[in-house]
């Protein structure tokens, strides 16, 4: 249970019974296309709006995860989900379809790991037998809400990131085969005064570093325990800053063991500026690619630190800086 100041160590590590990742057309051309369970060739996915398309992906990821584990939705005790759309409508509307008792969460792009940590806590504490956690994001819906219309010709700077269109879901159970969730560290909000919404990697890097420091301090490990330490969506700029900042703080992680979901998901030649971002970035890469590697035995111990920028369209118009957060979850095969 509670270890140190802000970490949980699970006594009977809950198992990831199944996980699923759904992606959009841009992700289908990305570097991890093979690790997606379902890929759409159109941004609208046969729906009449980007928001409905996002909800569809979230529902598909959930039903795919249930199908892979051979479970019915009636067996699931709780559904934990979050997304980036105002009032987390994608999650709540998907919960309406699923009709599983629902806890809506919001931690921006770190919702994936907040959901996974809470689902594991529910299962480990005996509050649930089966918990389903999922997150989603949609490039068009996010651009529309946070920035400009998708077809508007505004030049983006090299520090900007590309919101991943996709959804990821994981089914967590008390016992069963699959990777085990061993520990989680809940991050605190860190604000370094960055206010440029086109530079989220720089804004979020200190939050990732803060959570990583807390994780290793609370658990008494050093980074060599993990085969891979993965940040959520820092992108090229933020990931480099986090790497250097960790060295400065005396916590060196070897460069070959320290990667970022936002850099893994797309190919070098895809025009995504500094890399991928969004709730679905860490969710699809973790629940698809990384969990597949755990299941294949290529990785033994994995630490995912999902990062989130807790800004709103209103807060940055009012010239507020961007508060950021990061949550870490340790998964072992």
């Amino acid at each position, binding site marked *: 249970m509670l270890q140190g100041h802000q970490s949980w160590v699970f006594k009977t590590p809950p198992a990831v019974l199944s996980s699923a990742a759904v992606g959009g057309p841009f992700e289908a051309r990305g570097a991890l296309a093979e690790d997606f369970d379902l890929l759409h060739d159109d941004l609208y996915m046969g729906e009449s709006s980007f928001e409905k398309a996002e909800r569809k992906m979230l529902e598909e990821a959930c039903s795919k995860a249930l199908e892979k584990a051979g479970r019915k939705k009636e067996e699931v005790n709780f559904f934990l989900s979050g997304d980036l759309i105002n009032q987390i409508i994608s999650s709540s509307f998907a919960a309406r379809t699923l009709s599983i008792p629902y806890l809506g969460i919001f931690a921006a792009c770190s919702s994936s790991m907040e959901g996974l940590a809470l689902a594991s806590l529910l299962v480990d504490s005996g509050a649930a037998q089966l918990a389903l956690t999922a997150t989603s994001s949609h490039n068009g819906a996010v651009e529309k809400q946070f920035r400009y*219309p998708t077809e508007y010709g505004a*030049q983006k700077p090299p520090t900007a990131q590309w919101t991943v269109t996709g959804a990821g879901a994981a089914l967590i159970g008390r016992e069963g085969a699959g990777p085990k969730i061993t520990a989680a560290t809940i991050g605190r909000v860190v604000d370094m005064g960055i206010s440029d919404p086109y530079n989220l990697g720089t804004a979020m890097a200190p939050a990732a570093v803060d959570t990583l420091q807390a994780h290793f301090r609370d658990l008494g490990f050093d980074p060599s325990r993990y085969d891979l330490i993965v940040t959520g969506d820092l992108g090229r700029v933020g990931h480099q800053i986090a790497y250097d900042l960790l060295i400065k703080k005396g916590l060196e992680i070897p460069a070959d063991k320290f990667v970022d979901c936002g850099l893994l998901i797309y190919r070098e030649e895809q*025009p995504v500026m500094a890399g991928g971002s969004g709730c679905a970035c860490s969710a699809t890469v973790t629940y698809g690619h990384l969990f597949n590697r755990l299941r294949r035995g290529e990785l033994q111990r994995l630490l995912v630190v999902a990062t989130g920028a807790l800004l709103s369209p209103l807060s940055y118009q009012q010239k507020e800086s961007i508060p950021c957060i990061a949550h870490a979850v340790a998964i072992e095969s």
Partner: protein
Amino acid sequence: MSKGKKKKLTPVQREYQAFAAQREPRRPLLTNCLRAFLVGGIICTIGQGFQWFYTTYFNFDRVTAGSPTAASMIIIAVLLTGLGVYDHIAQWGGGGTIVPVTGFANTLASAAIEHRSEGFVLGVGGNMFKIAGPVITFGVFAAFVIGTITVLIKTVGGM
């Protein structure tokens, strides 16, 4: 960032921002300027071509040809926006695609397409001028101020 804002930062925030600034790629200013010059120039040359076309083959003079020329450029920009091409040209060409009339057409068309899902009144009607609105508001206001000054100078100076 403005000086006033920098003052409000704590020493830790200032230290981090200096640390991060060394690792952030800068906007390629010179390349952007050259590209904007090139793309903006090409767009204007196309416009010039239309003007020549309307004065040569139709009954327009250089002044009256302005309207059909602008209309043609707007139609092309709106079509390219709808086909999802204009934003890619803009990412490459930067300011070159914003300044001409085509940039204005793009702001209206892109917002209208984006908000079609909220219906014609609240969606298209309410959001079409989301980006172009401030330009019109302050453009009209600036015209009013300049107009007033012009009238004042003319009446006072022309006595």
